[in-house]
């Protein structure tokens, strides 16, 4: 087993930050706001952010408030800009090529989320060029979780707190340093610059696990679509999008052309895409104003079906959910994905 001591790791990160965009969990002032009554669970105060050195990293973070997906799939990106001059001649401006980036400290569940995104955005034709570009330039250095925290249920959806499946390099904290597992070629390439020690018989700590629960069967999903249960879930839902925006696997977006026309006939049009959420009313509104998911229960239901029925059916991944538990933590009215799955499994049995 390869090993790196803490100081060497920090030195390496410092050097790395000078070469590439280094993204790592860094402390954020969330929770310091006055009057904040239901702060996200302790330890979520960190956010993945570009950092300049190892000192900026929140080393003892648990789960960040947001997943790292925004570095592959930004909240907002300009797809292109079209400039039209007065004579009608158009010029297309494309965004600049992304620089290489390393996401350090990504949790196995978040990395697993990227695997889901890959399945949806890369492995289908046509692939999403913008995502593909960033994915190509990104190397993931994972950090296994010492335990499963409150709301975590990765083990129930096929993951593990120390899974190395979806990262390029996985670090696991051991005494005085980190055990290093290099998983992919990309990881190998990145690790070339590190001074790694080979330690014989280095034992990896066993993470503390939460109880695993049973998932509803495919048949249960099929049978439950019109169940009144969704009414009960949906009537509590406020219709905010927090659950979707913190989710590592949600990938819905809205595209809009923003345009200014000059009196002389010239104009500038920007095509912008931004995250969107199936929990918003606008999401499913079509031309003419009709909305097949006009009611909150329909929108709530969609989130569960998407994660546990549509994605597994349509793409090559077991679930559209990685069990990070963020949506449970942020939900202001405590809509709990694990509770829903549990309830549904029970109904399936009954």
């Amino acid at each position, binding site marked *: 087993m390869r090993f790196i001591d803490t100081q060497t790791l920090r030195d390496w990160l410092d050097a790395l930050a000078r070469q590439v965009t280094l993204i790592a969990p860094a402390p954020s002032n969330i929770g310091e706001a006055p009057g904040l009554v239901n702060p996200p669970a302790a330890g979520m105060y960190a956010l993945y952010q570009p950092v300049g050195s190892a000192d900026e990293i929140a080393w003892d973070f648990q789960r960040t408030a947001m997943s790292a997906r925004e570095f592959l799939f930004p909240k907002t990106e300009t797809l292109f800009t079209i400039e039209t001059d007065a004579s009608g001649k158009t010029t297309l401006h494309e965004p600049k090529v992304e620089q290489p980036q390393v996401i350090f400290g990504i949790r196995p569940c978040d990395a697993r989320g990227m695997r889901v995104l890959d399945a949806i955005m890369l492995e289908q034709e046509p692939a999403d060029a913008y995502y593909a570009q960033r994915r190509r330039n990104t190397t993931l250095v994972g950090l296994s979780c010492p335990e499963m925290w409150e709301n975590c249920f990765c083990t129930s959806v096929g993951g593990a707190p120390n899974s190395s499946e979806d990262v390029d390099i996985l670090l696991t904290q051991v005494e005085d340093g980190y055990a290093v597992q290099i998983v992919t070629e990309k990881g190998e390439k990145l690790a070339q610059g590190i001074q790694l020690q080979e330690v014989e018989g280095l034992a990896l700590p066993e993470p503390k696990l939460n109880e695993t629960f049973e998932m509803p069967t495919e048949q249960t999903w099929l049978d439950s679509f019109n169940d009144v249960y969704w009414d009960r879930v949906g009537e509590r839902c406020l219709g905010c999008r927090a659950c979707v925006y913190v989710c590592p696997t949600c990938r819905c977006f809205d595209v809009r052309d*923003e*345009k*200014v026309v000059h009196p002389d006939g010239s104009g*500038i049009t*920007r095509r*912008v895409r931004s995250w969107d959420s199936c929990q918003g009313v606008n999401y499913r509104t079509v031309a003419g104003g009709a909305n097949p998911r006009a009611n909150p229960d329909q929108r709530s239901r969609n989130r569960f079906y998407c994660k546990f029925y549509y994605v597994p059916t349509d793409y090559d991944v077991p679930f559209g959910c990685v069990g990070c538990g963020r949506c449970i933590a942020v939900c202001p009215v405590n809509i709990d994905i694990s509770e829903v799955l549990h309830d549904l499994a029970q109904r399936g049995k009954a």
Partner: protein
Amino acid sequence: MSKSSSNAIEGFEPKIVAFLCNWCSYAAADSAGVARIPSPPNVLPVRVMCSARVSAELILKAFMSGADGVIVLGCHIGDCHYDSGNHRTVKRIPLLRNLLIYMGVEPDRLRLRWVSAAESPQFAQVTTEFVKDVRPLGPLSAPLRMEGGAP
């Protein structure tokens, strides 16, 4: 604290959006023009029927789109063509202004003044003064201004 902020630029000319009430200040601006009373070219007039039409959204939109200052001009209280329109203006604009100041925007960037149809010299004076006050502040910065302009 000095009034001029660090982002003041040599030779900077602010762009000002002026919301002008049709019956008073627009008429004043018009007659100032007819009377050849010079008023600053930085002021880009947007005519509205009444100063009460100027919603917070319009002011914010002006800031977002590139205005370095916004001035709202209406009829004197009691002289509103619509009886009481400016009663709302006099509550709305100072409230918005105080909120913007609270969020760190310079106090001189938003101003409300009364200019009646008869006061074309005052129109020139009020706008000139406003430009003079905004100039040292430099271009408007975040959080209001869209980088690179709208959209």
